């Protein structure tokens, strides 16, 4: 039932939205992981980011794609929680976990289950079209699952289409740059530096004006 609803939502809403209203120029789409366990790590400008990343996968694979999303934001009311859990199929993450509760346990389970996770290490959408410093949660996950392949994806343009604090989407093409996957680098700092390096290299492939 849940898989059917998700498939319908993507066939009727998300895929047409991405094909007609928005659209993306993707550099190296072949680098997208086709099966898990894998983590897509992307910068975050807009709610559309998650929809675009998920729409790149065929409907048959959709249930394996799990966006990691802030529990305090997406579980704040009943309707949103239902939508986030059933349609977007998110893995809710407690940003301020209670003592004695492992906030990453279900994420580890999902990876062991062969899912492809979507993770935005900026933590929130922030100012549109501007990349904020990464939070280190991603390194914790990679430390626990050191063989998981992580693919860095730099996206630009969707912040213009639907920035934080606005409800009206305006058509724009997005740019998307995919990097070669990498693994746990033997230490948290090394892993975060590697991730930052990947993003800096991706950013250099495009020409981006600041948007204000």
């Amino acid at each position, binding site marked *: 039932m849940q898989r059917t609803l998700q498939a319908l939502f993507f066939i009727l809403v998300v895929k047409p939205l991405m094909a007609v209203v928005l659209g993306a*120029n993707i550099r190296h789409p072949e680098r997208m992981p086709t099966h898990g366990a894998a983590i897509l790590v992307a910068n975050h400008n807009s709610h559309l980011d998650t929809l675009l990343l998920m729409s790149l996968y065929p409907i048959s694979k959709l249930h394996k794609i799990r966006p990691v999303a802030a529990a305090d934001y997406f579980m704040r009311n009943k309707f949103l929680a239902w939508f986030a859990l059933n349609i977007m199929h998110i893995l809710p993450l407690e940003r301020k976990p209670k003592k004695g509760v492992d906030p990453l346990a279900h994420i580890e389970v999902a990876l062991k289950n062969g899912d492809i996770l979507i993770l935005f290490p900026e933590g929130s959408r922030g100012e549109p079209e501007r990349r904020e410093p990464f939070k280190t949660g991603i390194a914790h996950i990679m430390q626990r699952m050191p063989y998981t392949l992580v693919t860095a994806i730099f996206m630009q343009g969707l912040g213009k289409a639907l920035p934080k604090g606005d409800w*009206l989407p*305006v058509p724009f093409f997005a740019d998307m740059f995919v990097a070669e996957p990498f693994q746990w680098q033997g230490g948290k700092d090394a892993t975060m530096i590697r991730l930052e390096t990947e993003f800096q290299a991706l950013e250099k492939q495009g020409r981006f*004006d600041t948007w*204000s």
Partner: protein
Amino acid sequence: MPINLRYAVVGVLALLAIGTLIIELKRMFKPGSGDAELWLRMRSWWVMAGMFLLAITINQTLSLVFFAMVSFLALKEYFSIIATRRADRRVLLWAYLAIPIQYYFISQQWYGMFIIFIPVYMFLAMPMRMVMVGETRGFLKSAGTLHWGLMMAVFSLSHAAYLLVLPLEKNPLAGGAGLLLFLILLTQFNDVMQFVWGKLFGNIKIIPKVSPKKTLAGFLGGVATTTLVAGLLAPYLTPLVGWQTWVAGLIIGVFGFVGDVTISALKRDLGIKDSGSLIPGHGGVLDRVDSLTYTAPLFFHYVYYFCY
């Protein structure tokens, strides 16, 4: 379907088949590094021509929707590559809304509104909307760039679509669709011929600062071939007669080139190679319709003046 239009459609398909054959032969006997790109480009020609021919042969409404879609994609590409202001998000939406309105006027054969809606009403409405937002920093640049894009991607291109609704009795053997096919075929043929002539005899650069690969031989050869083909085809597809047919070819040949290098100048200014990646082997939609932004309005008014 008017009889000559039918022949023309078959002719286009034959032309595509010949092109495919030439590329295939080149791949077999003189393989080179650019083959994969050429092949991709040819495949995209089939897809684009297929969609276009299907639209114009099925019915008028579908053709108008097809062109409105081309305008939308071209405008979206333009807004995505230029620097826009956050304050202008609502203004951009107004610009997009001009597309269905403009094509609605065309569907109603409402010539007066078709010809003034964007140059007058949208020209006045967009700065008004910008003032309502109230952000003055970058106002002039924004007002100018947004309207230029609307003129190129919507107003200019929609002239091609207006050919479809011109009265049939003036051109009974081919109809509006025949005129449109003539314009599109000659414009795209001119692009290809300028490329081919330039490859064959290319040494004198014609406009190196804007488009370093374009050569004088490409330009002249392209214009000559296009004029010749226009003179041969126009009597069957257009109401033009005698010398008018050759001048039509000359207009398409010369200004197809101008449209091409105008969009090249835009891309060079922005520091990008292609306007997008929607059409494999060609780049974006704007890259493909660059010549048409000039030839469509110029050819339209030329025919309109003499025949309608």
